[in-house]
């Protein structure tokens, strides 16, 4: 039996999940992860791939079922219980799949706003980086972390809102997956890294020290792209906001119908009302990336001079 904390939840798990922050044993918890048999609903193909496997998705009434061929089937129940039915003995693989989309289903049931993004803390606000695979989400986050910014999330970002609609990023767990090219380009120390079974040339970096679990107010969202025909930096137009957020929804799109698409729409605009949303061309090369990171940090943490 294992106890963890992630995404603001206390977790009691029958499965070892080395990615997560360990918690003291508890007598009650927010989420129970357990082994069990799952009744297959009618499953449909999704647009989600991990390790080259395409996820299938279905529903048993309100329960959400995600099936990964030859890895595991997951069933999320009421945001409180995650049943896992493994099809492999590879523990690393099972934990990897558990702490990504499967945990995402639980967060969705809890009403969090979810994005396929990486986020870091800059000064006292949270910055979030999105983009298509390979655009540079994790690389951008890695550059900010190298410059001393704490990591908040990688890949799956969860946002919650206070009563006034103000958005906060809920820290996920202390792990960032980066490409070998990024490791070398940003001079990350190889001894601090572990190879990821996620595929070739990817490493996992665990930041040192205590992983702060307190939510951080959202300050900026960047959609990172590589398009040379667009300006280097532009503010996202109002009309583009819900669409871009939708494109970066990390779970099956069929979850967004009726009430939940309404909520997604409102939450998208709550993010836009309180945070700056940019479309940014990825800096050309690591040197320029680091330069941009330094400029951003100093602009954001500049102390106003007292002229009295």
């Amino acid at each position: 039996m294992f106890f963890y904390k992630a995404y603001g939840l206390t977790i009691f798990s029958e499965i070892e999940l080395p990615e997560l922050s360990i918690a003291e044993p508890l007598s009650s918890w927010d989420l129970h992860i357990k082994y069990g048999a799952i009744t297959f609903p009618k499953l449909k193909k999704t647009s989600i791939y991990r390790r080259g496997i395409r996820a299938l998705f279905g529903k048993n009434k309100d329960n959400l079922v995600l099936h990964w061929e030859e890895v595991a089937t997951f069933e999320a129940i009421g945001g409180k219980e995650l049943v896992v039915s493994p099809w492999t003995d590879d523990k690393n693989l099972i934990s990897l799949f558990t702490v990504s989309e499967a945990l995402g289903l639980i967060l969705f049931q809890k009403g969090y706003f979810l994005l396929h993004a990486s986020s870091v803390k800059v000064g006292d606000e949270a910055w979030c980086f999105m983009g298509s695979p390979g655009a540079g989400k994790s690389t951008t986050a890695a550059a900010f972390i190298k410059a001393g910014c704490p990591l908040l999330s990688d890949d799956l970002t969860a946002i919650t809102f206070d009563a006034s609609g103000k958005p906060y990023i809920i820290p996920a767990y202390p792990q960032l997956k980066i490409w070998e090219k990024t490791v070398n380009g940003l001079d990350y120390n190889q001894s601090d890294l572990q190879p990821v079974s996620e595929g070739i040339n990817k490493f996992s970096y665990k930041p040192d020290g205590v992983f702060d679990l307190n939510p951080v107010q959202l300050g900026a969202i960047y959609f990172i792209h590589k398009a040379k025909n667009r300006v280097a930096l532009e503010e996202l137009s109002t009309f583009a906001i819900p669409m871009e957020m939708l494109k970066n929804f990390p779970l099956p799109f069929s979850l967004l119908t009726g009430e939940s698409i309404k909520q997604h729409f409102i939450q998208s605009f709550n993010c836009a009302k309180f945070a700056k949303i940019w479309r940014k061309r990825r800096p050309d090369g690591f040197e320029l990336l680091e330069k941009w990171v330094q400029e951003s940090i100093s602009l954001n943490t500049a102390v106003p001079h007292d002229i009295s």
Partner: protein
Amino acid sequence: MKYKLTSQQIASHVGEEIVILNHNKGAYYGLDEVGALVWNNLEGEPKTLEALCEAVTDEYDIDAETCRGDIELLLEDLISEKLVEITE
């Protein structure tokens, strides 16, 4: 005859613009400044075509006839997308 917003829509105001979602269809729409003015007028309570025209001509330098034609077209679009319906 009055026009009112349907229960299939939800709208968000950002600056001068409005983005509307039809959550039954899962489709998004955007309205420019003038469209937004008409929409704002419908948000409070059902309105007649005359009341909507008056709201626009008060705000913009446009003759009543052109205005009426434009608003009729806009309402037709909004009705066909099930964002607005006719009442009474």
